[in-house]
């Protein structure tokens, strides 16, 4: 059974029809990539999944429970690192623990145990502005992971990084997700990134977004052919709006 199920989600924002009957599922431990053109409604979909905004129609089901318009179950990371400039890296990543009621000292100790795996060892007492872009995104990832380690929603987390750093982060994330068997919903408009990370890809249309195609990527899948397939789907659907 699916751990996460977004069923028949529709949503208009300011009278703008954004999501059109979108159904997306993810099994436990699966990496699902949502691929779609800019402005199609991917972030809106994740906002609904995170419980930040209610859908007009449809439901969010996680572990068999209704989480529609309720926050606090899944962790969510956006393109911006959103680290607080006023806090050191260690205090930034321990925020989710503090918010859950753990005292500051214990939160720090717990967070400290993950610093090495996230490549942040030695930078605990630095402020965000003293870190490189890649490190800031890793800190944001760690903060996300410490909120809910089983389900991570990632909205173009590496879009602001240079190509080389982004590539490194993608490979690192793939290993990490495998090792800790996290369920990942990953939003991107980068096909290469999608192919690298996904067990399954949902291809969305331009706004109002609907699911054009669901592609499973097992080990036997030929990524060049899948890429061709995705491109042809998008070409026939949206013409020149894709980028």
């Amino acid at each position: 059974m699916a751990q996460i199920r977004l069923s028949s989600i529709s949503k208009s924002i300011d009278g703008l029809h954004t999501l059109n009957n979108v159904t997306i599922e993810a099994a436990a431990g699966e990496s699902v990539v949502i691929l779609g053109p800019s402005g199609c409604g991917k972030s809106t979909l994740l906002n609904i999944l995170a419980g930040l905004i209610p859908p007009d129609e449809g439901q969010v089901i996680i572990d068999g429970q209704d989480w529609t318009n309720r926050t606090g179950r899944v962790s969510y990371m956006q393109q911006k690192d959103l680290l607080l400039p006023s806090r050191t890296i260690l205090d930034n990543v321990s925020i989710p623990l503090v918010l859950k009621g753990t005292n500051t000292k214990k939160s720090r100790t717990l967070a400290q145990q993950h610093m090495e795996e996230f490549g942040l060892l030695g930078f605990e007492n630095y402020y965000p502005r003293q870190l490189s872009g890649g490190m800031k995104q890793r800190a944001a990832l760690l903060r996300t992971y410490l909120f809910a380690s089983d389900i991570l929603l990632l909205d173009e987390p590496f879009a602001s990084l240079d190509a080389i750093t982004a590539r490194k982060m993608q490979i690192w994330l793939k290993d990490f997700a495998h090792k800790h068997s996290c369920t990942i919903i990953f939003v991107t408009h980068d096909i290469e990134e999608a192919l690298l990370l996904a067990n399954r890809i949902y291809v969305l249309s331009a706004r109002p977004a609907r699911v054009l195609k669901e592609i499973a990527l097992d080990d036997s899948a030929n990524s060049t052919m899948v890429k061709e397939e995705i491109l042809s789907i998008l070409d026939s659907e949206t013409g020149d709006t894709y980028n």
Partner: protein
Amino acid sequence: MKKFINTAKKSSALFTLGLLLLLWEKGVSWYEIPAYILPAPTQILDGLLKHHQLLIYHTSTTLLEAVAGLSLAVILALIIGFLLHNLRVLYTAVYPLLVFSQTIPLIVLAVLLPLWFGWGVLPKIIIIVLVCFFPIVISFLNGLDLVDPDQINLFRSMGATKWATFKMVKLPTALPAFFSGLRISATYSIMAAVISEWVGAQRGLGYYMTLQQKSFAIDQVLGAVVVICVLSFIMVKIVDLLNFLLMPWNRNQLVR
């Protein structure tokens, strides 16, 4: 060498000041201007030293009023700012009045308040609070609005309470703006104290100046002015120090 040039740049204002004082000194003696019209800088310094006990006595009152008034203004601005930011109804009902209140001439209040609250320190402190409150609350409110809505959303997605979000996200974001308002208010605080004392008091630098002016001791009046300038300067420096201590993440920017 670079360091030397930097220090030279920093002290060039002091050099200008020195030059002006020298011109003043020489001009007064050249044109034989009597001390009851315009005393020379050295005469003012003489007066300062001679009457230092009396000056310390009056300065302590002024300083006490200013610090009390400014502190009250800060507390009030934080509370009112918090309320206005969180209650939009209150914001629309009160904010325009706050701006409007700034058009009331200070001097009229300085005259009227003693009629209602007597000639002690209370009306002085009220005036200082009224003067200092406004710049702080306005910049604090502006600072609170600078927060990235995505940052708020992130905290919401983590199930943070409104209070936790205010404390961890909004307050630190608003601090730099808050301090720039406080800096302005700190310069006003001493001035507001002196003006309210000038209108009517039994102690304080403003009162001292009216006394000396009536007996044509212009050197004493100007001596008090020097004290006022130094006090205002110290108040600003104290605010800068607080700024430095309370925002460790901003330090490099401050040094520049």
